[in-house]
């Protein structure tokens, strides 16, 4: 069965726009975002540490929390004190971390939003059937909400939201409370459905991988301020400052100075070594060199010709081994600490142990410079 035609027609302008958005709650500062636009059809992932104000931002955009100051535009229409908030909210849908289902059957829950909008019986039935099926819970339709597992309940919440065919969909850490396998399944389902429907989505999470998997753009919110908003590869590969770098997983951060630069390739002095990094920064600049552990490769020490295409090769000693699930994080001291991740298999194959001598390599394009 094909998905019912999406409610969004082709129009110009962003689906959501906020200018000068400021939110204070209970007298405390929570959020300040001078400018934010969510493009039609895009999935915007907002990530940040706990307490950064992500949920508040989502609730403000979903018209659930009043702004202390600032302006909101929904599909070009300004939202002001006289606006019919109920009518506007009925063009959106929100899924929270908890399924927040009501004391009734799954089907009744999924049709709740539709019934609130006064849709006809047949329309309600049609959409409910489709979306229950789509999220794989058609067989649970008559079961009572309380009798569902966490994953099943969240599927119901998702079905409930999608059945509304919203113009904007908001998801507030929808998978945070689920166990890893369920989470993986649901992300799969969600990615497919989002691709099919093309609905404008704002997705809040503290999990970087989810953001990478789902988002067309990623926004990093820290202490109530939007530090960076860009495509995922830019945010993760080129974080705008140290705090963002730390949050997005750049584990190796080294102070250095640009010695020379030619054709976008910079030579940077880091402690006693020199590394090459793709950058346009001029010589003399103080910088921070950032590296993701997955971009650092370990080799058995060997002298002689290059065995990899990486421009940077350093020798050092293993100073730390931290297991991380299926991977192992290896800290190598080569005058400064570098963190690399290897699979456990590789760790075994290389017989990694503390104090062992290893070679580390990384590409000039993998490293990232942040001016200090």
């Amino acid at each position: 069965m094909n998905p019912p035609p999406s409610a969004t027609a082709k129009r110009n302008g962003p689906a959501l726009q906020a200018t000068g958005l400021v939110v204070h709650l209970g007298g405390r500062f929570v959020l300040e975002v001078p400018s934010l636009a969510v493009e039609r059809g895009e999935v915007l992932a907002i990530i940040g540490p706990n307490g950064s104000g992500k949920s508040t931002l989502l609730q403000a955009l979903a018209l659930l929390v009043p702004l202390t100051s600032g302006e909101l535009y929904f599909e070009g229409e300004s939202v002001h004190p006289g606006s019919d908030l109920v009518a506007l909210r009925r063009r959106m849908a929100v899924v929270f971390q908890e399924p927040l289902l009501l004391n009734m059957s799954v089907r009744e829950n999924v049709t709740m939003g539709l019934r609130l909008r006064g849709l006809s019986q047949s329309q309600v039935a049609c959409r409910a059937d489709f979306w229950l099926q789509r999220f794989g819970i058609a067989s649970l339709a008559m079961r009572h909400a309380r009798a569902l597992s966490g994953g099943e309940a969240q599927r119901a919440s998702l079905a409930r939201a999608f059945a509304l065919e919203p113009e904007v969909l908001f998801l507030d850490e929808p998978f945070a409370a689920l166990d890893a396998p369920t989470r993986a399944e649901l992300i799969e389902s969600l990615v497919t459905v989002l691709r099919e429907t093309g609905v404008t989505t704002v997705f809040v999470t503290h999990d970087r991988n989810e953001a990478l998997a789902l988002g067309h753009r990623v926004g990093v919110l820290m202490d109530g301020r939007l530090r960076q908003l860009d495509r995922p590869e830019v945010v993760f590969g080129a974080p705008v400052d140290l705090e963002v770098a730390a949050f997005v997983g750049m584990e190796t951060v080294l102070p250095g100075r640009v010695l020379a630069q030619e054709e976008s390739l910079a030579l940077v002095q880091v402690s006693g070594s020199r590394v090459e990094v793709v950058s346009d920064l001029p010589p003399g600049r103080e910088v921070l060199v950032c590296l993701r552990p997955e971009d650092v490769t370990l080799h058995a020490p060997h002298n002689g010709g290059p065995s990899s295409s990486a421009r940077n090769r350093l020798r050092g000693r293993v100073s730390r081994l931290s297991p991380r699930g299926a991977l192992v994080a290896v800290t190598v001291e080569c005058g400064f600490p570098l963190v690399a991740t290897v699979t456990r298999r590789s760790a075994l194959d290389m017989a990694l142990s503390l104090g062992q001598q290893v070679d580390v390599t990384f590409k000039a394009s993998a490293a990232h410079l942040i001016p200090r």
Partner: protein
Amino acid sequence: MDLIVDGFRQAIALMLGLDRELLRVTWLSLQVSGSATFLSLLIGIPLGTFLALNRFPGRHLVISLVNTGMGLPPVVVGLFVTIMLWRNGPLGLLHLLYTPMAMVIAQCIIAAPIVTGLTLAAMQSLNPRLRLQLLALGASRWQMLWLLVREARLPLLAAVMAGFGGVISEIGASMMVGGNILGQTRVLTTATVMETSKGNFALAIALSIVLLLLVYAINLFLTHIQQQGRAP
């Protein structure tokens, strides 16, 4: 012990024989307490919901008053209502004293804080995020309130039963404002007290049994409704 057996026998005889006086007294008990409970629901459920969902200065004070009201001695209520309603009192021109209406008023004053307090607790026990979710689903203010009340229906029905139970068994206020007048304001409880004071213990026991059966029947009905909504 033989008194209780006597009482049982008399109760059965009265009920099977559809004793006129018994029927009248029972029906009036139901009417008065039923109306009073109904009115207290009209006041208590909205008030309790309002207190649960809204913040305003002085909220704590109001909630404390409600909780105190739950323990109001009925006889005190009866006294105050009597003073209000008697001829030379502020509301004397209503001529309500010694009528069933006065009993309804007094019982309503007794039941309303109970219903309010229990509604407040019931609504506060709901997940606070639920309100947001309902708004996000596009519920208007009234739709949201209705859904929240529906969500809390188990403890709310308990509130109804508590309110009803509190007034159907009430004597002090009913006696004072009603006067226990034969054929006009005599209810099961006041009749029981009177028969006891006269020394007609068997009859008093019989009336008590009828009262208990009545209360049980009503609660059976309400419990049935309450338990219907439970998850399997």
